[in-house]
């Protein structure tokens, strides 16, 4: 068992965005969360990664509660997320974006940096090589010197993925990683997500593209109006009458 959410509730000005939601994300697999716009998917991500405090409920990761931890502390525990809206360091070069993502792997202290000790220089070199590797993995090696903000949209989304991977996640939360991409790019992202899982990373995915979701997920959780209305294997969920009516009938 990797991640476990228990009776999580979030209200915005009295309106429930999440109402006592409970679910689990199993280690080493790809779990997807789907649901109509405003269902509460991003809100759930925000609570899990410490950006939002829930009204009630708790989040357990490998048995330990995450409640009250700050986002950076949650990242230190190996839980890394991407954001629904494109999110890079726009004025920084693509390679340096990934270098920032490597932050947790660096050890150099203030004194060593000011004295520019040899191990600091060696660490820099190792990390730069690692960053190049990650860039090559997502297929952005040719862009390394360009400022991230100048990249076309689809490539910025890939860069976000690279930044998150640099932080060495054991659980990776992806919020609509393929939104706004063309079909070819989507297929590429699907391949990447599979390869990430093969490297032993647990993937928790929010995505609207059903072809993508049904194609790669081991399990699917359906959220509607802040409640889990179905969960199970992709095939089961697809034929669930409640799910169909949620998507067709709106509220």
């Amino acid at each position: 068992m990797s991640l476990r959410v228990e009776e999580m509730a979030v209200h915005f000005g009295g309106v429930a965005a999440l109402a006592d939601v409970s679910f689990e994300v199993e280690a080493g697999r790809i779990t997807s969360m789907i649901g109509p716009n405003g269902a509460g998917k991003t809100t759930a991500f925000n609570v899990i990664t410490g950006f939002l405090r829930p009204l009630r409920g708790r989040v357990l990761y490998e048995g330990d509660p995450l409640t009250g931890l700050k986002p950076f502390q949650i990242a230190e525990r190996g839980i890394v997320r991407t954001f629904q809206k494109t999110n890079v360091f726009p004025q920084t070069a693509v390679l340096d974006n990934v270098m920032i993502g490597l932050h947790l792997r660096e050890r150099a202290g203030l004194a060593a940096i000011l004295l520019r000790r040899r191990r600091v220089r060696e660490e820099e070199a190792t990390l730069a090589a690692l960053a190049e590797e990650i860039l090559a993995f997502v297929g952005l090696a040719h862009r390394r010197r360009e400022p991230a903000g100048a990249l076309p949209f689809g490539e910025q989304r890939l860069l976000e993925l690279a930044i998150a991977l640099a932080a060495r996640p054991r659980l990776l939360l992806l919020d609509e990683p393929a939104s706004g991409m063309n079909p070819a790019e989507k297929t590429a992202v699907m391949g990447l997500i599979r390869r990430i899982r093969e490297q032993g990373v647990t993937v928790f995915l929010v995505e609207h593209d059903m072809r993508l979701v049904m194609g790669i997920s081991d399990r699917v959780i359906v959220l509607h109006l802040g409640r889990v209305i179905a969960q199970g294997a992709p095939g089961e969920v697809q034929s669930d009458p409640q799910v169909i009516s949620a998507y067709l009938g709106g509220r």
Partner: protein
Amino acid sequence: MEEFLQHILNGLILGGTYALLGIGLTLIFGIMNVVNFAHGEFYTLGAYTTFLFLALLETNFFLALLGAVASGILLGAICERLLLRPLLGESIDTTMLVMIGVWIAMQNAELTLWGGVAKSIDHPFPQPPLTLGPLSVAPLRLFVLGAAVLLIAGSHLLIHRTRLGRAMRATFQDRETAALMGVDIHRIHTVTFAFGSGLAAGAGALLGPVFVVYPAMGDPAALKAFVVVILGGLGNFAGATLGGLILGIAEELGAGYISSGYRDAVGFAIIILVLLLRPSGLFARAERVG
């Protein structure tokens, strides 16, 4: 007890003008998302314009006050059209730097124009104080309080009872939606800045005859305006009115019972305490992540 009541009365008189300053700043802040560091300079402008009308043009006192408010409105509108409109949509830091530039430029323009020597403004009110039971108050100060109350009430009506005010409030709520609903954002911004600057100039014109007029008088005034905005909450009209009165009274009590050397420290202390103890309490606007 009598001394205490006297401090409260003096505090109210100061507080009324602080509220005027604060209302202008809070509207500009809330509606335009501009931190107007030049706000105090419009206060100075109001005071000097009054002086100009009275001492050099020798007009009627009340006409001079109107002239001062008009000068604030005019220069405010020019400032918005020239410097802020081209920067619409830029980050808050960018407009803040520009307004810091305006602040320095205006203050030193005043200094060049009028010299550093403080000037006093004549007024038609009798000198001997009126006594109300145990309290005494100069007629001029009573007039200042009355005029401030009138201006505050007028602003309240403008914002809550007119179409223009409704458009301003809609822009404050959500600029994009207001634009979609047909509000002319450019016009609202010009009006807001001109209006806020006019109120600041009015405050300067009212306090000019009470104290003296000098080029750097806008600095403490701007500080007070910021305190009022922070006390009352960002973009909060009623809060600014209340905040102004609270600050006026707090200052009078601080100066009366602690030490007059630290009078201005009251303002700084309020800013630090309020922002640090209730960083989200008074002006919470939760940001969205994701």
